[in-house]
């Protein structure tokens, strides 16, 4: 099996070519051409026990609707696995910095108040709306300097993670 693995998140991630082949005992693996023998079992869902040259790793998998993270010890890595046979080149996210940016709800909660009006100018990091969840009021901030083109949130509204609260341009 051959995979392309991006480790380190969409922005600064490094791409690796990973080849895996079942051996008599364990797996023969080539990471960016470098051969390494590994032994791996999944003792329980989302946990992988990996032995590489005697070194033992317990790797934990954290999967959300949008992301895959792997924990090696106490270190967390964003990981993306791709089929290298697909022709699609990786999208860069750099372009996003320039155009309109969405302000997203980071958690489920309720809008308690709006801190700015539509069309007002905001600095990067300035509060846009306040979302209450778990008895805490959380200021959701503008990701960039610009103008609040649209506010989609209203006081009292319930929101889910990923809901668009406002658009800053």
């Amino acid at each position, binding site marked *: *099996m051959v*995979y392309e*693995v991006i*480790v*380190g998140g969409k922005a600064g991630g*490094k791409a*690796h070519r*990973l080849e*895996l082949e079942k051996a008599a005992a364990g*797996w023969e*693996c080539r*990471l960016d051409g470098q051969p*390494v023998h*590994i032994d*791996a*079992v*999944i003792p329980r*869902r*989302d*946990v*992988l026990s*990996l032995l*590489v040259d005697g070194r033992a*790793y317990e*790797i*934990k*998998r*954290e*999967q*959300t*609707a*949008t*992301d*895959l993270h*792997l*924990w*090696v*010890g*106490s*270190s*967390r*890595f964003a*990981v*993306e*696995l*791709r*089929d290298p*046979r*697909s*022709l*699609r080149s990786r999208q860069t996210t750099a372009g996003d910095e320039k155009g309109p940016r969405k302000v997203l709800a*980071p*958690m*489920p*909660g309720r809008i308690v108040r709006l801190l700015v009006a539509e069309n007002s100018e905001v600095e990067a990091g300035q509060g846009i709306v306040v979302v209450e*969840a*778990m*008895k*805490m009021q*959380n200021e959701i901030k503008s990701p960039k300097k610009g103008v609040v083109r649209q506010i989609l949130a209203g006081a009292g509204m319930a929101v889910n993670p990923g809901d668009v609260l406002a658009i800053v341009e």
Partner: protein
Amino acid sequence: MFKKILIANRGEIAVRVIRACREMGIATVAVYSDVDRGALHVRKSDEAYPIGPAAAAESYLRMDKILDVAKRSGAEAIHPGYGFLSENAKFAQACADAGVKFIGPTPHSMKMMGSKTSARQQMEKAGVPFVPGTSRGLVSSEEGEEAAERLGYPVMLKAAAGGGGKGMRLVHSRQELHASFAAAQSEAQSSFGDSEVYIEKAIVNPRHIEMQVLADEHGNTVWLGERECSIQRRHQKVLEEAPSPMVDSDMRWRMGEVAVKVAQAASYTNAGTVEFLVDQQKKFYFLEMNTRLQVEHPVTELTTGLDLVHLQIRIAAGEKLPFTQSGVGIRGHAIECRIYAEDPDNNYFPSPGKITVLLQPSGPGIRRDSGMYEGWNVPMDYDPLLAKLIGYGSDRQQAIMRLERALYEYFVAGIKTNISLFQRILGDADFRAAKVDTGYLDRLIAKGNPAVVSSAPEREIEAMESIAAIAAGMFAVLDPAASVGKNGGAGGPGSTPSNWRQNGRSEALR
């Protein structure tokens, strides 16, 4: 002894009280809101009754509904836990009126301690040291200016009915006082429905140290040692320890005796906590009394070998304290980490949702009081405390090392938790040297939140990245049902070994 106790709470504390009751052979009655049907306290109780919608005001704060369940179920006593109705004197009174024993102090003691100004007046009489200031509410900002002049800046304006940092303002100079007074009043009014504000000399970078007391209904009061609670964020405690590294035996006795004096002045019964501010010169000042069981009671349990909830129940049942002050010994060191559902990478925003993976630590010196389980959906409606991880050791260093080991074993996916914050605190040189005060945690967080890896040498990070890359492939090969790549999710029953390829392709076609 009671045959049946209703627990008017939820989460880890409800589970903790249910366990104590089971240990004492007492049947338990749980109450739950609509979103808590699947909560652990409902699973673990002998009886359980719904009391309304998610909003606490319509369920866990509804005295009438809770007393109605007590009546229906035949519960003889109510344990309020902490938060919710635990410090509500009206509820304690309503319990008494309904013939149900409230496990806590009398409404009279609660009322006296509920108002900070009335508590100050009472303690002034009893000769308890407290931060210089006014023990009555300020009538005007002019009165405040006079008092501040007398006390010397900086001063602190505080809401009489206060708590949780609301209605509190630090004032550095006369110029600021007028505006701050107005702001504190209005915040106090909106938060507590009571605009009374008083003034105190501000203690700069104080420590927050509290003393546990226990009083039976026969006039016996003892103290059980102090807890260091200086590690806070947004006035919320995050990590507590017992004993405090800065309190020696002499200071402990003096604080303990003052705490007993405070309790006796309030005719206090059951478990309570006397909070002190301690300045750089180790002078301590009475701050307030919490008339309930504290979240952090386990560190006292581990260092004294006592069970505070058992004792609360025994006291409420009319028993005498089974020991005197000389029978109380402090041994070893205990530290509690409050595991909150919040995102350390995103400004500690709350993080409710479904727990998809949960690996929990155990073993020597580790106590875990938890309200969560794998598969549970953490509701967004209540405070974010999921569990408490408490480490005990024969000394502070061993307690720290055991906690670090246990935190390493702890893993929660699906929601975010502050586990990594504790790894930072416990590894921090200032914490190790016990150089902490109430500003410590904000300073630590302000240093930035480097991923744990960034402190490791470059070579090691690269090695770990390689491991992560290999692991990603092995997960895909060995557990293909769970999806791969961005089109994640738990992988339905239709998932097949070749699923990742389809995912890959559909992405390519977008």
